[in-house]
């Protein structure tokens, strides 16, 4: 085989691999792909985010719901109400329930309610979510908290991996990152949307390749307690739960409720194992985070209201402290009110809003059927001056 000699004056073309033009174009394409992924339905199209298979998936999809609300908001509205909290407000303040309650009271009010809660969120998580509020241009922010949200417990730290998924900002917050790597992660999340949302992209791909049939959309209407039990546990187990609950309603004692719950578990049954009330102070890390959060919210043009979430009054009978830490709630409330007063933020004490038969356990009220959204709607309208 003969080879033709290349004349000396003819140079080989510069390789595209090292051309600056290639890299400039690559960067432009990365930006285009970023937009195509992070601002379009392929990422944000999952609505069946009530996960019954695996807590690791559940926590990703709950934070995904919050991220979608922030980065891919629903319809625009003249009035936008943002609710921050955890499972205590996740259930009773679903957007559909609160918007319905608001429309019943103020039919002409063009309002959108965004529930930015996720399970297990503590005050550090709420502070992280609050960093995104400007994107939603709130008319009103409801900070739905309870005393246990301000302390680290075995149920959750002040800032949890769920909140860290949305952690952005150049400067460290009141809870510094655990390592330099975590700090760098936050910086990259701040500037690069695809990096910020990559866990959700990854999970979308995994779920597309291997769909989970049990994923559902949480119902926009819950007509009865039994409907709730059936939805949560299926008709067979739901029937048993409903029967146990009705048995308790016939004999509405504290012990009967514990029996309905299956006897409880852990040192305080099914309430969060909080520290002694005398250990709480304004210098505690949870209250420091609350102070920073309220300082920032108070500087915004929109009003903020702290809502202390309903507590099951059955626990009043637990004088011995078998199922909860007596005195903790009152002490935490006193401190929350002190911090709020510094920033002239109103506190609505909703701890006694609901009678015991509106609670599904010691911590959560029934969604929709409890009517909690009606009281919340009243407070929203009051805060909006409507």
């Amino acid at each position: 085989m003969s080879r033709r000699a290349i004349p000396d004056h003819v140079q080989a073309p510069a390789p595209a691999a090292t051309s600056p033009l290639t890299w400039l174009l690559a960067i432009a394409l990365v930006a285009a792909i970023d937009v195509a992924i992070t601002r379009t339905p392929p990422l944000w199209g999952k609505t069946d985010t009530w996960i019954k298979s695996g807590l690791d998936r559940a926590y990703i999809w709950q934070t995904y719901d919050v991220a979608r609300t922030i980065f891919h908001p629903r319809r625009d509205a003249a009035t936008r109400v943002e609710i921050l909290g955890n499972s205590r407000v996740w259930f009773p303040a679903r957007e559909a329930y609160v918007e319905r309650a608001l429309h019943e009271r103020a039919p002409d009010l063009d309002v959108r309610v965004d529930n930015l809660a996720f399970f297990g969120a503590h005050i550090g998580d709420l502070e992280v979510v609050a960093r995104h509020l400007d994107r939603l241009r709130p008319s009103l922010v409801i900070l739905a908290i309870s005393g246990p949200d301000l302390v680290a417990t075995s149920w959750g730290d002040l800032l949890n991996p769920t909140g860290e998924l949305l952690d952005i900002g150049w400067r460290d917050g009141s809870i510094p990152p655990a390592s330099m790597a975590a700090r760098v992660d936050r910086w990259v999340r701040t500037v690069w949307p695809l990096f910020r949302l990559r866990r959700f992209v990854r999970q979308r791909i995994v779920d597309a390749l291997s769909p989970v049939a049990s994923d559902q959309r949480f119902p926009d209407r819950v007509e009865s307690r039994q409907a709730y039990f059936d939805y949560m546990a299926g008709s067979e187990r739901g029937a048993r739960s409903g029967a146990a609950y009705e048995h308790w309603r016939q004999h509405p004692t504290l012990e009967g409720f514990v029996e309905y719950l299956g006897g409880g578990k852990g040192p305080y049954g099914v309430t969060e194992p909080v520290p002694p009330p005398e250990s709480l102070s304004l210098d505690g890390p949870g209250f420091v985070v609350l102070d920073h959060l309220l300082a920032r919210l108070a500087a915004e043009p929109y009003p903020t209201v702290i809502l202390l979430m309903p507590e099951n009054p059955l626990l009043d009978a637990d004088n011995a402290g078998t199922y909860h830490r007596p005195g903790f709630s009152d002490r935490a409330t006193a401190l929350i009110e002190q911090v709020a007063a510094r920033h002239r933020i109103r506190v609505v004490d909703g701890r006694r809003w609901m009678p015991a038969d509106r609670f599904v356990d010691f911590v959560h009220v029934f969604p929709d059927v409890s009517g909690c959204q009606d009281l919340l709607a009243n407070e929203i309208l009051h805060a909006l001056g409507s």
Partner: protein
Amino acid sequence: MPSVPEPQPALGAIVLRALLYALLITLLVVFAPGSEHVFIYQGF
């Protein structure tokens, strides 16, 4: 001796190469491990 201008790479090669880089960067960003850790909520 007159200087010979350095030949530029073909436009098609640049576009293909840039697309390859962009896809690789995107895949790396999405799938590379970060400092996130798994969360197990103990409340239930």
